[in-house]
């Protein structure tokens, strides 16, 4: 049981102290890829430790079935004193607990799979709707779909291959260089498979909503993947061009504010 207990303690520690600690480390966004990888490892290791704990506990119970109190005596002497003669009760309790944890993990897995499949279907439907909205018009820069809409928007959707969507207003608002920078940003999301990471993180945040670690992980991973994409675009096209593109899309059209 020691292994199971250690793993559970580790996961409890991470759940309790992880959010503050990790946020402190990744707050500055200095190395975004390392940052969101850290969050992925943290959340993954919590789920992993629960699964491993359940497996270890199940193996222990199976190996020491009927002699549980003697097996536990080695590391839980006090408990043995309390429980002498109640080996069966302890065994039942531990078996029930292990069973519940295993069941919970199974439900987690099923809910996760369901959410991911649903997201995948929605994304495909959105891609198809974007194609139709483009009305077969010639592709825009970088093979992007161009759709008529008054909003200035550029976004990308996961898929094989990914899809980048630009509105005609965005096309008009950006210079060629700025457009190239924006496309580089979106392509960085696609090559980095950020959508997959975000989908899983989002699903876990939803399923395990009461645990702050997972909601925070989702928010931080979203922020850090954006910074990563910005870094890639800035490296290729210059930080100034990226900022200009951002301003061109974000600020409402009109005369630029004069310097004081």
């Amino acid at each position, binding site marked *: 049981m020691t292994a199971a207990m250690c793993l559970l303690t580790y996961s409890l520690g991470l759940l309790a102290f992880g959010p503050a600690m990790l946020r402190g480390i990744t707050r500055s966004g200095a190395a975004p890829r390392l940052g969101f990888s850290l969050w992925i490892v943290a959340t993954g290791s919590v789920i992993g430790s629960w699964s491993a704990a359940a497996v270890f506990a199940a193996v222990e119970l199976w190996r020491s079935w009927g002699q549980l109190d003697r097996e536990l005596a080695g590391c839980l002497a006090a408990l043995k004193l309390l429980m002498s003669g109640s080996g069966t009760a302890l065994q039942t309790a531990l078996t029930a607990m292990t069973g519940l944890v295993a069941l919970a993990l199974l439900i987690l897995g099923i809910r996760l799979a369901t959410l991911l499949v649903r997201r995948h279907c929605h994304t495909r439907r959105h891609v198809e709707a974007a194609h*139709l909205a483009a*009305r077969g018009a010639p592709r825009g820069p970088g093979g992007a779909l161009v759709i008529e809409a008054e909003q200035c*928007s550029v976004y990308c959707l996961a898929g094989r291959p990914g899809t980048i969507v630009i509105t005609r207003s965005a096309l008009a608002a950006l*210079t060629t260089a700025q457009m190239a920078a924006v496309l580089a940003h979106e392509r960085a999301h696609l090559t980095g498979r950020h959508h997959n990471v975000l989908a899983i993180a989002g699903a876990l945040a939803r399923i395990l909503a009461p645990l702050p670690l997972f909601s925070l992980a989702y928010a931080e991973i979203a922020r850090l993947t954006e910074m990563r994409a910005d870094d890639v675009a800035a490296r290729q096209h210059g930080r100034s061009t990226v900022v200009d593109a951002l301003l061109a899309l*974000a600020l409402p059209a009109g005369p630029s*504010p004069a310097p004081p």
Partner: protein
Amino acid sequence: MRGFGELESVVMDQLWSLGDAATVREVFERILEARPIAYTTVLSTMDNLYRKGHLTRERVGKAHRYRTVLSHAEHSAALMRQALDTGQDREAVLTHFVGKMNDEELARLRDVLRNRPGSSPGR
């Protein structure tokens, strides 16, 4: 570049141009003006669009008259609504270059603009 949904987009484009409703023959003849295509290809494409819920149809004599469920404007508006929805439970995972900003963030952006070395944003 022929890709996923290319022909479906062209067919929808024709339908939207024809007042949101047309028979297969009408769409086929319009497309044929621009490029070679088989009647059966157009037929199966429109049938697919019907099955996917983008078109409705009614019998007119021996043929079907297909109608778009949404006008082009409605379709694009729905697409943009879905794309710009910033709710946590957004179903499709998509990433924008720049997200929607509130007034405070826009004000901070303007400060950045004012304090940048050399200038007003060139376009």
